């Protein structure tokens, strides 16, 4: 297993390095720890089975984010259940979102703003890169970023 080469990294190194990125994408999209865990696992297993030829770690990271989003979409389409928005849900309660200040991402923001905000502010992607990952035009990304900021500003006031 360790012999596989993914942009110069072994599979274990890839998992250890990008577990937070992929995990947060899954959690933000599904808002359920158990489901996010499944999609998290499927994302890395897809990488392991398919072993795509990726030139650099940046490509690898973008590939993982894109696959994680696809896995989450597939999961939601397959299960067709409502996304948990209840703060009192067990999965959400067990998830330490307050410690890392994820409540804005999980509950206040809409899905379409959430990913863009996360990729822009947390993963430090640029607009064009986000556009490539999410397969949307750059201007759309800019619009989503602007509206997401306005939404957070209206929630948190001048703090944001």
């Amino acid at each position: 297993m360790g012999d596989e080469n993914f942009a110069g990294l072994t599979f274990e190194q890839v998992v250890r390095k990008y577990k937070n990125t992929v995990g947060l994408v899954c959690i933000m999209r599904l808002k359920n720890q158990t489901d996010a865990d499944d999609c998290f696992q499927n994302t890395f297993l897809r990488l392991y089975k398919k072993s795509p030829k990726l030139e650099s770690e940046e490509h690898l990271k973008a590939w993982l984010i894109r696959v994680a989003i696809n896995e989450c979409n597939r999961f939601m389409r397959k299960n067709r259940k409502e996304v948990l928005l209840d703060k009192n849900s067990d999965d959400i309660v067990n998830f330490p979102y307050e410690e890392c200040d994820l409540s804005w991402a999980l509950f206040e923001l809409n899905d379409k703003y959430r990913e863009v905000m996360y990729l822009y502010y947390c993963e430090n992607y640029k607009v064009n890169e986000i556009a490539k990952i999410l397969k949307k035009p750059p201007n759309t990304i800019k619009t989503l970023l602007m509206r997401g900021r306005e939404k957070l500003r209206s929630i948190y006031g001048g703090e944001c």
Partner: protein
Amino acid sequence: MNDFNFDKMKSFDISDEWADRVLSTASKIKPRPKYNAKIIASCLCLTFVCMISVLVFGFGKTQPQIPTAPKETETVIQTQEKSENKAYKTVKKQEKSEVTQVKETKNQEISESKQEESTKKPTDKKEQKPTVLNNHTQKPVIKPTVKPVKPTNETVSEETQPSTEQSLPNKEESTEESKTDNEDLTSPTGSDCIVSFSPSYLVGDGKIYCRIKDVNDRPVGDRKLFSSEHLARFYSGFGSVYYYIYSPQSVGLVLEPGTYRYYFYNEHGVPITDVIVEIK
């Protein structure tokens, strides 16, 4: 917006359990084999060379195959029929050639037997019968001393022939038939003959019964003289079955020299065929 604390989010750490679970699952999965381009190219070249060699060296030697399956079966059946007919003809020819040789020996035997009969009592004839019967029952194959006689069944159809025992052919018809077919059907060697008919005649118990009539169409002996036990089926072609008829002596009937006609029936009394046999 910059005041919003994204650093906390960046510091969020997914537990190692998730990563360990992925790693343990991945260790159980066999990764997809990566095909080497050189290996694929070499395989393609090898197959190409093989195809070229087959086309160059093997094409001329291969025989054209019959395209469709039904035609194949038909041809196979036809060839089988031809081969079997040829085999039967060769057997016939051999028998004819051997019969000429056997004629002399039989005549000698007959002359000797006549001499013996003249010397012995009439009870000696009965003592000879079981030995002949045993010989025939032990050898259900073609005897080399037999000349086959052409059967007349092919001309006989079920519609024209009577279906019961009461509607047997008349004397006049039989005499006419005997006149017309006498030359072909007469067995020069005498009692033994071969008859041919369709297996569809073998209804009921599957046995064949025979009645022997003399030249004047008078029945000789019992009607159920021959059953299938006294017949030897030695050849089965497509559509017809050939039977070797043992001599009447083998079933205990002593016929005087002369021309006789064997009428064969099935269990229902439907006439199958008739053969003229000349006993010398």
